[in-house]
């Protein structure tokens, strides 16, 4: 049996029965990494020795008897945007290439508290800015389903690692679609929680009013398990919500009779790939056959979401990334003549082109004379986008859309045209602007064999309902069981 192919809940069951050890599982995954990560290139840093030690510790605890926490002994991958104490955290940027965090992000602490095994750090677009993982300062990651295609981004390393069985599941971050879009492109499940559900403490900031940490996993049940582990209030993040966390696994009943599923016209646009559109309608029919009720809803400000996002996100990013000044940590240019030159050269040499572009756009949007016309305007349109969803959710519990207008594109296809790249996030961005939970699950494949993602959007803090609907769909289909030809 190939242990690396199993889901978290399957591994857990075998561990619980004592049929396999965590060490055997971790070795199986490490062997798989040695075999195929040369092609996929999902990992930036592998912490093989630490992982094996951690697995041995779990096996000793298991041997001593007593119940283990839900994630004990399970090998997980972490997007390189989350601080891991003593393990390099680069954000796929030269400017943080040698950064060793002195602390763990809250989400990491919570995984460690459950004795999860951390395998290493996964590749991403630099500072999570991108939709293809081609903006990594180190190397691009490839899509396991089509090696000359991108895995999506920015959590492309995490998504590719899950799809190729290079980990049981992974954490990513999502500012405008960075969990859902790569999950869709790689044929796995990925969930962006409601803003405030998961602490951002130790998540390297991109756009602080939009960023959320979330799970990428082989199925919906695993997403629920991982979300359960990381969700909940944290005094170290003043934007973390002080609300009780429901039991997500108990929502996975398979019964979605009577649940109203909103379908927004605005998400079925011209230019959408016909194979994607067909797969989404078939998925909606499946949800109806399961007892879901189709409801037409309106999200009229959808066409303005990308423009709004690229002002709000870049403005916040330009401010957040001001901290990279070559003083406290990170890269510093050699032999600067004075302080100003030190700042300017360190940033010139440390940041890649997309990060510079966004810092420039954000600085421009916030600068004297342009603030009202750009930044304030975008914040007002953000209100309109949020209201669209509030009104739509009076008529339904879940909104179903495609995750992306196309399947994974080819490596290099959009790198020369930033605007084209931005438009690939057109269906995921509004969800961040409105702070809602959203999830992508596989709902088919193109004739060329590339996965297609179905996005389910929920009401604030109602992850349970989207997980319930996603799980019921998954039970009725077998897309999530397919494995890439690697």
């Amino acid at each position, binding site marked *: 049996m190939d242990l690396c192919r199993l889901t978290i809940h399957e591994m857990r069951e075998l561990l619980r029965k004592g049929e396999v050890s965590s060490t055997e599982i971790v070795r199986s995954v490490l062997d798989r990494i040695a075999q195929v990560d040369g092609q996929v290139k999902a990992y930036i840093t592998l912490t093989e020795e630490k992982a094996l030690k951690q697995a041995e510790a779990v096996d000793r605890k298991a041997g001593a008897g007593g119940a283990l926490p839900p994630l004990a002994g399970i090998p997980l991958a972490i997007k390189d945007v989350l601080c891991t104490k003593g393990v390099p955290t680069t954000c796929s940027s030269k400017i943080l290439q040698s950064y060793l965090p002195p602390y763990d992000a809250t989400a990491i602490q919570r995984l460690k508290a459950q004795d999860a095994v951390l395998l290493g750090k996964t590749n991403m677009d630099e500072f999570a800015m991108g939709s293809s993982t081609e903006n990594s300062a180190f190397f691009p990651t490839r899509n396991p389903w089509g090696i000359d295609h991108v895995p999506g981004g920015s959590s492309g390393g995490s998504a590719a690692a899950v799809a190729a069985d290079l980990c049981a599941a992974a954490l990513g971050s999502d500012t405008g679609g960075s969990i859902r879009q790569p999950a869709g492109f790689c044929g796995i499940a990925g969930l962006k929680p409601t803003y405030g559900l998961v602490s951002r403490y130790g998540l390297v900031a991109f756009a602080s009013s939009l960023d959320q940490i979330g799970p990428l996993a082989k199925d919906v049940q695993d997403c629920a398990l991982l979300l359960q582990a990381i969700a909940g209030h944290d005094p170290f993040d003043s934007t973390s919500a002080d609300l009780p966390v429901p039991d997500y696994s108990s929502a996975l009943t398979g019964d979605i009779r009577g649940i109203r599923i909103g379908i927004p016209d605005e998400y079925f646009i011209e230019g959408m790939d016909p194979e994607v559109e067909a797969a989404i309608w078939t998925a909606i029919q499946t949800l109806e056959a399961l007892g879901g009720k189709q409801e037409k809803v309106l999200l009229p400000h959808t066409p303005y979401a990308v423009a709004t996002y690229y002002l709000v996100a870049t403005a916040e990013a330009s401010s957040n990334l001001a901290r990279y000044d070559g003083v406290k940590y990170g890269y510093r240019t050699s032999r*600067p*003549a004075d*302080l100003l030159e030190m700042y300017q050269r360190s940033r*010139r040499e440390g940041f890649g082109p997309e990060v*510079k572009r966004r810092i420039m756009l954000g600085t421009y949007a916030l600068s004297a004379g342009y603030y009202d016309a750009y930044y304030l305007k975008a914040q007002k*349109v953000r*209100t*309109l986008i949020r209201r669209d969803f509030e009104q739509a959710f009076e008529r339904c519990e879940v909104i179903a859309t495609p995750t992306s207008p196309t399947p994974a594109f080819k490596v290099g296809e959009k790198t020369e045209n930033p605007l084209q790249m931005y438009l690939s996030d057109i269906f995921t961005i509004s969800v961040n602007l409105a702070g809602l939970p959203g999830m992508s699950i596989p709902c088919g494949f193109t004739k060329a064999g590339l996965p297609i993602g179905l996005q389910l959007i929920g009401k604030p803090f109602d992850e349970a309902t989207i997980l319930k609907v996603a799980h019921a769909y998954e039970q009725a289909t077998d897309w999530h069981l397919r494995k890439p030809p690697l």
Partner: protein
Amino acid sequence: MKITIKDVEHVARLARLELNEAEKERMRAQLDSILSYIDKLNELDTSAVEPTSHVLPMVNVFREDEVRPSLSQEEALANAPDRHDLFFRVPKILE
């Protein structure tokens, strides 16, 4: 043209980014095309709309100002590109 080379130079100075001549022109052209796309927002009348800076109904979060364990000076300085004793060292700022 929405943005000139002079604008690019001004913004680069504000952002403490050094750009060479070729990069300035490339940046100008790319920002210009992105800003033209963003102009789409002007189709909407937002004169009576409140801005959203945050989706949660945020209020200030206070706590007692107590001394708690934190990073040691050694840990806080461990990633510094240059240091002197227990300080971050930077180029001289006064002549």
